């Protein structure tokens, strides 16, 4: 499957990489469950930071295994941007807004958790039904990625505060990144950097909107619901 360099000895065996990626996938699912279950915005932010850290570690492992320099760069950027900078920004916004620390679910958190389980089971079922092409993606990265993406969307759809919706967005993006890293060689560096840049810009614009609505109408932007029909 993977194109090996001629005669180059892999520092880590393929089975080992599969096992590690699977393990990281399980931990990612755990952080996702924490995000879904978080009753307070702070907890969700810490969980998503931990999730990004795991993604960065997965990138590092895959980089070491394939000897792909691009993956090192991507892992580094993920670490700095998604595990450190973005969570800090979110944290700063929570502190600055100084109110509304609860995530305010639309449906009970327990129900969201149940839906999350359905999503996880479905994702694994779906990717188990795929044929040989699973080999193109390391280990369980495909079902874990699908589960993370869909659960992130679930969080965005079922929370009423803007910041929690942003956390859901980051989690969703993490799922895509995880799968993308595990695709044979990872996506081209330039594309990954572009994607991360987009995520940063989107987060920036969202933060500005949240603060602007808070300062003008003193409400959470996600609460506005006058546009109907």
């Amino acid at each position, binding site marked *: 499957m993977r194109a090996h360099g001629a005669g180059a000895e892999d520092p880590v065996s393929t089975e080992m990489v599969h096992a590690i990626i699977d*393990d990281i996938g*399980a931990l990612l699912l755990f952080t996702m469950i924490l995000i879904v*279950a978080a009753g307070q915005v702070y907890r969700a932010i810490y969980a998503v930071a931990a999730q990004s850290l795991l993604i960065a570690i997965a990138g590092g492992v895959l980089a070491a295994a394939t000897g792909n320099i691009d993956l090192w760069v991507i892992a580094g950027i993920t670490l700095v941007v998604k595990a450190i900078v973005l969570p800090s920004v979110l944290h700063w916004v929570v502190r600055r807004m100084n109110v509304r620390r609860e995530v305010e679910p639309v449906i009970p958190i327990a129900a969201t958790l149940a839906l999350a389980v359905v999503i996880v089971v479905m994702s694994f079922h779906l990717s188990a039904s795929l044929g040989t092409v699973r080999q193109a993606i390391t280990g369980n990265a495909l079902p874990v990625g699908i589960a993370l993406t869909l659960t992130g969307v679930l969080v965005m759809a079922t929370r009423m505060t803007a910041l929690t919706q942003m956390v859901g967005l980051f989690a969703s993006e993490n799922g895509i990144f995880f799968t993308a890293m595990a695709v044979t060689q990872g996506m081209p560096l330039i594309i990954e950097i572009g994607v991360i840049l987009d995520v940063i810009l989107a987060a920036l614009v969202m933060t500005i909107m949240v603060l602007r609505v808070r300062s003008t109408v003193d409400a959470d932007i996600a609460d506005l619901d006058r546009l109907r029909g």
Partner: protein
Amino acid sequence: MMSGEISVVIVLLDMALLVLIGPLVTGIIQKIKARLQCRQGAGVLQPYRDIRKLLRKGTVQADTASGFFRSIPVLVLAATVAAGALVPVMRAAPPVFPMGDAIMLLGLLALARFLTALGALDAGGAFGGMGASREMTIAPLVEPVLMMVVFSTALAAGTTELGALAAHRGTSWILSWRAADFLGFAAMLVLLPAETGRIPVDNPDTHLELTMLHEGMLLEHSGPGLGCMLLASHARQIVTLGLVSALFFPFGPTESAGAMGLLLGAGAFAVKILVLAGFLALVESSYAKLRLFRVPQYLGVGFVCALTALALRIL
């Protein structure tokens, strides 16, 4: 190959050891907590002193209580201690003399819980009834999750006998962990405070009616009966911790081994229990007790983790 008698002796030795060091673990947790809160704290032997004191006292019983009430502490202690016999302490191999499996263990713990609640209701006190009803609200959330964690591990090994599970995993545990084990372990960490009656689910240090679950059920007991109940709850705690270590960190001689091997296994067991006790103390010191209505949500995390672990194993 050990003869049958010796293996029975070892199992009984395990069991006695567990019951005896149970209060010590509680004492250690209290000590760590105290130090984390910058207090001196009572000595680690304090739980033993409490029990000794209680055993010497007389018994006072509510007028409304039936004759059955008196036998409750003994039955609870018996069920818990019997559960202790199923936990592999010094070995990581199936016992030569099988007495039961993990399901049996959980069943015995559930029986002890049931008897405790029954006793609390029998005494007719308001707090006892309240504690029992709360305990019985939490129990159906905790027990299925424990079952699922056990099953997710058992599926891989093809057995529910704890010793055989431990043997299947081998002693290189953390390296051989599969994805499902991480989630199962996470579920277990979430459940531990609930199963051992600690913050954030219960508070073992207080008798305030707003906070208590387990302690509420003990209010009507006194003297030696209360001593038995306390000993049972210490034993229950160490049995649960032993279950975790058997499921996830088995260590010890797999085949018949001499005294040296058994000692090594016992030492490793002590270290594992100490680490888990430290974890419990840390959680207790850093979190506040949850409102009762928030507890199902908290346990839901464990439930989802366990279910996902199970799904990972099957799919």
